[in-house]
């Protein structure tokens, strides 16, 4: 029944030649509210287990839920930003199933009456014919509560089988979640993996812009399940789908969809059938493995939650929330791209690294857009990846980067020194100016010490000096390099070159 870990796969080109992929994406977003969905417990991440709990989120006998109004507001704002209709009347429903991390053995969720429904999100994907827009339909966005977290102790795998015992942390139980479900995504052809990634990227930008969640995939505040199926052609009926979970980064969404397509193609090509099941994505090996079998017959015995009154958002309030929505990220991006005058490719790099707001702020503080992009998309993204943190979590601000760039512009720093200043800021040594002062990092602008260094360098290499004198100006680089080395990089290389040529009476 369960598939072995060494599944056969078909080369991607062949998959595309033989099959048409269909996607469906379910994204769970943990809202950044101060308190839980149905009680007043704090939602802070990383607290000691079972310290952020009360009778309500522990499901103690007699306790009752009360809806967090901020969560409802966030849900509506998300729906509006995704072009959804907002229900004028809706209810919570109970999803009944037994599991130890579910305090009540039912999840308070929404079923056939979601608060937001029927929307869409347009996403851009780089294709062979240039940038192309795909419209992803949004089926629904609904409110629900998160479960607790189970960890299995003992045993080798950390999985429930073979474990000695299990521990449950209910701190997460009751954290507000919004589940955003797409309609089936068809017509992507070979770009299915890219569309999946672009959708989650765009969704994350929207959520970040709304300020409703910290959208950290690695901490689980944004979780994506990818439903993938294949069919022989776009007019054939839908194939059996699998649902891949544990996809914890934008890059893995693309990889997981691609892998699952190649795996399913191999099964189908061999005359097999796809089992409707949950599959787990493995970041390290880049494959999915079989989880529990999931059939449509799974019966959650949904019924309207009788402990909560229906929610009927006042249409005037909804319109007010609509009017207060931040600029759509796509429009915002297009506006910035035009202002900076950069290519689609360069803009995608900014967006994909999650640096858009940081770059924009840095530019707003006076830095050149190219310099701002160089820092955030290049050096700082690399450092963030090394540290496995989000770019925004690095201890450096757009103001710091803008100040470094200002110092470069004034000629007080050169590129090499600027890197050292950034390094100092990241190491917690203070503001750029404090780092410059403490480390003594300033471009040597006094010609005296430079001339001394030049003379010393010329004396070291009389043959080079002679070449330059004889008109081989290209040889000047060696002397400039020696001077830069002698001044530990604090000289302005351009000035050194000028002085050197002057000294030797040569012109360019």
């Amino acid at each position, binding site marked *: 029944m369960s598939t072995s870990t060494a599944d056969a796969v078909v080369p991607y080109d062949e998959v595309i030649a033989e099959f048409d992929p269909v996607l469906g994406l379910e994204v769970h977003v943990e809202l950044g509210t101060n308190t839980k969905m149905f009680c007043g417990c704090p939602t802070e991440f990383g607290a000691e287990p079972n310290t952020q709990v009360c*009778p309500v989120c*522990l*499901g*103690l*006998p*007699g*306790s*009752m*839920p*009360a*809806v967090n109004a901020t969560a409802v507001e966030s849900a509506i704002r998300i729906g509006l930003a995704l072009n959804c209709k907002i229900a004028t009347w809706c209810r919570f429903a*109970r999803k*009944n199933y*037994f599991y*130890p991390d579910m*305090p*009540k*053995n*039912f999840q308070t969720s929404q079923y056939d009456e979601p608060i937001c429904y029927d929307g869409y999100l347009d996403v851009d994907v780089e294709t062979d014919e240039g940038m192309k827009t795909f419209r992803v339909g949004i089926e629904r966005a609904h409110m629900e509560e998160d479960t607790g977290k189970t960890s299995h102790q003992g045993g080798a795998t950390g999985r429930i089988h073979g474990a000695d015992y*299990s521990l*449950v942390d209910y701190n997460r139980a009751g954290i507000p979640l919004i589940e955003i479900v797409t309609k089936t995504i068809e017509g992507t052809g070979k770009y299915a993996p890219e569309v999946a990634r672009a959708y989650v990227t765009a969704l994350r930008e929207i959520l970040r812009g709304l300020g409703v969640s910290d959208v950290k995939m690695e901490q689980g505040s944004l979780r994506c399940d990818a439903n993938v199926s294949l069919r022989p052609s776009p007019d054939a009926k839908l194939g059996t789908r699998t649902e891949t979970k544990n996809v914890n980064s934008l890059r893995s969404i693309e990889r997981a969809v691609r892998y699952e397509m190649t795996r399913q193609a191999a099964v189908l090509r061999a005359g097999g059938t796809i089992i409707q099941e949950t599959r787990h994505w493995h970041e390290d090996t880049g494959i999915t493995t079989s989880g529990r079998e999931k059939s449509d*017959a799974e*019966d959650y*015995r*949904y*019924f309207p939650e*009788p*402990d*909560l*009154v229906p929610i009927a958002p006042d249409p005037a309030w909804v319109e007010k929330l609509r009017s207060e929505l931040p600029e759509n990220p796509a429009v915002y991006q297009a506006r910035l791209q035009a202002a900076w005058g950069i290519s689609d490719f360069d803009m995608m790099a900014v967006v994909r690294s999650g640096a858009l707001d940081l770059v924009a702020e840095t530019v707003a503080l006076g830095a050149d857009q190219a310099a701002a992009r160089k820092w955030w998309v290049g050096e700082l993204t690399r450092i963030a990846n090394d540290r496995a943190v989000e770019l925004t979590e690095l201890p450096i601000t757009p103001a710091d980067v803008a100040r470094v760039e200002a110092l470069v512009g004034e000629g007080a720093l050169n590129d090499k020194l600027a890197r050292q200043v950034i390094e100092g800021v990241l190491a917690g040594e203070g503001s750029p100016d404090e780092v410059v002062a403490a480390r003594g990092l300033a471009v040597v602008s006094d010609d005296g010490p430079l001339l001394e260094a030049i003379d010393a360098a010329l004396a070291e290499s009389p043959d080079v000096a002679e070449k330059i004198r004889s008109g081989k100006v290209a040889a000047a680089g060696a002397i400039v390099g020696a001077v830069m080395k002698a001044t530990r990089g604090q000289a302005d290389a351009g000035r050194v070159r000028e002085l050197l040529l002057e000294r030797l009476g040569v012109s360019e």
Partner: protein
Amino acid sequence: MTSELISLTAAETASKVASGEVSAVEVANAHLDRIGAVDERVHAFLYVDREGALAAADAVDKARAAGEQLSPLAGVPLALKDVMTQKGIPTTCGSKILEGWRPPYDATVTARLKAAGVVILGKTNMDEFAMGSSTEHSAYGPTHNPWDLDRIPGGSGGGSAAAVAAFEAPLAIGTDTGGSIRQPAAVTGTVGVKPTYGAVSRYGLVALASSLDQAGPCSRTVLDAALLQSVIAGHDPMDSTSVTDPVPDVVGAALRADVKGLKIGIVRELGGEGYQAGVRQRFDEAVTILEGLGAEIVEVSCPHFPYALAAYYLILPSECSSNLAKFDGVRFGIRVGEGDGDPSIEQVMGRTRAAGFGDETIRRIMLGTYALSAGYYDAYYGQAQKVRTLIQRDFAAAFAQADVLISPTAPTTAFKLGEKLDDPLAMYLNDVATIPANLAGIPGMSLPVGLAPEDGLPVGLQIMAPALADDRLYNVGAALEAALLQTWGHPILQEAPSL
């Protein structure tokens, strides 16, 4: 002195405590003594909190000595149905599965009682998770009717009603999902009120059927019930289904006690066949008294009431199957079969539930699980909700013709212990007259209207009013009570055999 103190009404006790004529500690001790003397035979209590009761009483006496303003029920003892949480005090809901559980929090009702200086004596017996009409489904043995210890005290709140009838407490809290306050009141000769749905917070009431459950007062007089309802009623942000409307002046209504010019409707469908002759006789006499007091009696029809019982036995088990899912041995209560082999968590949950729940509870969980299943939902739960709407419309039409509606509370007087235990359907029929009010969310009261000539046991009359018009129950109830008292010359409980 002791026997005098226990026979006082709550209103009288409060006034004596407030004036300093007696201390709250004396009152508490008198009731604790009474419990000690009779509860072995009545078994109204599952837990007696002697220490806590005396400390609460002492606090009232100290507050009085300090010249503080006392609330209207300060120093009055009360018995709390074991379905209501009280911080640190065992709460079992009459079930083995919760044995040993001490809640870490007070129900809103409990908190309001404490704040009002009411002295909580202990927790009363009940059918497991409030499912039953006889208290025989308690895992801790049945409660006995003080009128005849071989008979049932009604249910599910038989413990609360019996405690009041046996003078172990002048007041008690009950909960009513299909009649669990009113039917025990009827068969024990006491007063019981199910307020409008949402009038009293359900926070801390261990849910049976969330859309039907409602806590309310049990007492020996209509005025006492009004005093208690005004302490526990009112909006609670912890229960979003609790109503935000102002609490009606139920105490004022009980003091007014004037039915002149009121239209009182007799529900044609509640009475007649299936109702004991003595029950019908006492009911008819009460109607005559009300007419004599100046009320206009009309007959109304509620054509969908015959479907109420069927709808109720789909809605209740459905909600119950979900509400009772949390009892799994993981976080509280007993845990069974952990050491037997190398069981999975599912097996431990299953063993715990199989061992912890009684037959009636398991029956209803299975009924509800089935009714909510895919493919059956529309035919059962969905259809039952439609019937519920029809019953609400029946009430709306009836209240267009009458200010209040009346009926016998229960078809019969108290039956013998064990008599209907093996016949669930016969047991369910006991609630046929009380269930419609729960389905519609309207308030209902039961008060004693005499003893059935054939068995000498109490008969209850039910009054129902439109939602939020609880005051009408108290006005009509108090008028009828006063007239009956004049006829009898003494409270009906004086006719009960001494324990």
